[in-house]
């Protein structure tokens, strides 16, 4: 899974994450006729976030099309199409609107390989815009990654920048296994200088985004920019924080994460999701199990509270910001070292 896809696009350009995702879909569709994109409003509208913008115009409506409004139907039909030689890439309109598809995802998408002893694999991608930070009303801001990460058989991937969005979506579409591709919607419009031809690690690899020596912040998706900002603030206060971006929740890159934590001896996990029984809990457990003797303090979490995601005017209370991250860093028993 660590091989690097060649994208055919070389050179630096300014792209948003939304545009980078669109580019990845376009390239995969151009390369491989079996790649089909479908979901709600992905055709003429180009998706409510415009990720599929122009795909129907370019590839025709057998390659990118709107379905009746039923998420279980969308994912269930994708299962069948994947069984019969296609590579469906389906869009769930928002995190909380994927729940009607939960049965298909957990009972079939995740288990087909296992049930059939690898006679049937499901090369399909379920794209889910997720998490908060956009002032969305209820059911539009869930951090639902733990449900999928907890389900054996699903790869769960989440980019935090445009280049990774492109690289990881290309890899997800090429993967022989189903991938739940979680897109942090608050980062869709962030414009970045990217080189889509650059070689980047594929699914299953984390990356160190910022070097640091005092403690390691472990983040993914929407929390990566928060961790980077916290590291910047900490640097001004004389503390050197390293930032690791998971990129892939499943498979989990124990090697990169643990090497990072061992190098600093302290760690904080940053995530938007409620902390209880979460991906953050899993990271803390893994790091503690593997790095216990290198740790100068218990691994802390700066995460969402165990409450339903609040309305726009209260979402700042829920989302871990720089202050909550630095509070957790402050708790890393500095006086004992």
């Amino acid at each position: 899974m660590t091989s690097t896809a060649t994208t055919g696009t070389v050179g630096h350009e300014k792209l948003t994450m939304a545009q980078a995702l669109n580019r990845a879909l376009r390239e995969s569709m151009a390369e491989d006729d079996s790649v089909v994109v479908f979901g709600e409003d992905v055709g003429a509208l180009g998706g409510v976030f415009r990720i599929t913008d122009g795909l129907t115009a370019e590839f025709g409506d057998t390659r990118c099309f709107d379905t009746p409004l039923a998420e279980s139907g969308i994912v269930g039909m994708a299962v069948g199409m994947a069984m019969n030689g296609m590579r469906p890439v389906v869009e769930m309109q928002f995190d909380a609107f994927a729940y009607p598809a939960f049965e298909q995802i957990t009972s079939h998408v995740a288990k087909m390989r296992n049930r059939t002893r690898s006679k049937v694999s499901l090369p399909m991608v379920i794209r889910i815009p997720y998490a908060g930070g956009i002032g969305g009303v209820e059911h539009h801001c869930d951090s639902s990654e733990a449900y999928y990460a907890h389900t054996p058989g699903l790869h769960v991937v989440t980019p935090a920048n445009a280049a990774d969005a492109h690289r990881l979506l290309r890899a997800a579409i090429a993967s022989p296994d189903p991938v739940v591709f979680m897109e942090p919607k608050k980062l869709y419009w962030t414009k970045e200088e990217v080189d889509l031809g650059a070689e980047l690690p594929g699914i299953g690899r984390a990356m160190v985004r910022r070097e640091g020596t005092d403690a390691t912040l472990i983040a993914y998706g929407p929390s990566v920019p928060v961790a980077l900002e916290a590291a910047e603030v900490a640097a001004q206060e004389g503390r050197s924080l390293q930032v690791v971006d998971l990129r892939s929740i499943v498979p989990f890159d124990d090697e990169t994460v643990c090497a990072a934590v061992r190098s600093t001896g302290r760690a904080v996990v940053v995530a938007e999701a409620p902390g209880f029984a979460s991906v953050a809990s899993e990271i803390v457990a893994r790091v503690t199990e593997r790095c216990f003797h290198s740790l100068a303090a218990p691994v802390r979490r700066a995460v969402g509270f165990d409450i339903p995601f609040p309305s726009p005017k209260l979402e700042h209370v829920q989302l871990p910001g720089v202050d909550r991250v630095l509070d957790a860093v402050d708790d890393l028993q500095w006086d004992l070292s």
Partner: protein
Amino acid sequence: MTRDLDLLLPSPHPVELIDPTGQTVAEAAHELPDDAALLRAFAGLTTARRINDQAGALARQGRLAVYPSSHGQEACQVAAAQVLTDDDWLFPTYRDTAAVVIRGVDVAEAFLPLQGAWHSGYDPHRYKVAPQATPLATQLLHAVGVAHAARLRGEPTVALALCGDGATSEGDFHEALNFAAVFRAPVVFLVQNNQYAISVPLARQSVAPSLAHKGIGYGVPGERVDGNDVAALLTVLGTAMARARAGEGPQLVEAHTYRMQPHTNADDSRRYRQDDEVAGWVQRDPLTRLETWLRQHDLLDDAQLAAVTADADQLAARMRTELARDATPEPAELFAHVYATPTPQLVEQAAVVADELSREDEH
């Protein structure tokens, strides 16, 4: 219990009692509602239109997080509220705020979620209005449950459940119809077929002869009605409610209408439909149709119209002042309403938030 197919089939054409030009439809199969009901409906239509206009303006000014307008669908909004007795329950969607207000919910309470302050702003038991539902078609099963419980408890309640054309594709829509039929629950389903689910036109949603025909497979009688003719809606929905109340089981009503505005203020409808299609529906406007009819029958004069308009203006003024206020609950409430008794962890977390916020205030 099996049913005669003819009793389940909708009429060959949508029921219409007042045509788009405001004339009484000759030889209609149903009677017109009485004058008082139509005058009340006219006041309701005026109010609903004003709510849509005012909320649209507030959304543009950034005072609302979002507004899904029911402009063009006001006849459905008004009829849905007007056919209810005090015992009945309404199960609205995100698009049905006008119906919620006309049902009697205070406008400030109704708009709290759209202000971005809390997920629901009113006491559902007080008004017998369920929280407006966003996950499509999910509320329809709740309506069946409320109706079934009412029957078990010997209450005269009928539940009226609303959804859109797109929502009829969701599994929950089909489960709700089947459950309602099997349990003979006193529930009426009103599908506001406004021709679009965001960008997806009805033709992509279903190839059934009509959405009202979807009842047949479940043994639920279906009827279709001109959704911009409030007279027809009042009659058809009123009959369905009476049947349900009399123990004759559920009914499915499809109202043909049109979403005159984008899906919400955040949507760009030019990407998927032509302006002239929208313009065509102006001719079918629910307000002008009833106004013409009332004037022709000497039931409405300029003075009465002015009075109705003044009431609507007053409501709009209240919306402007109420929705300018920040009604956001205290952050502590985020932890108070997760369980009857907050878990020890939530108590701890509430303290963390209080500390975070107090330090923010110091800055």
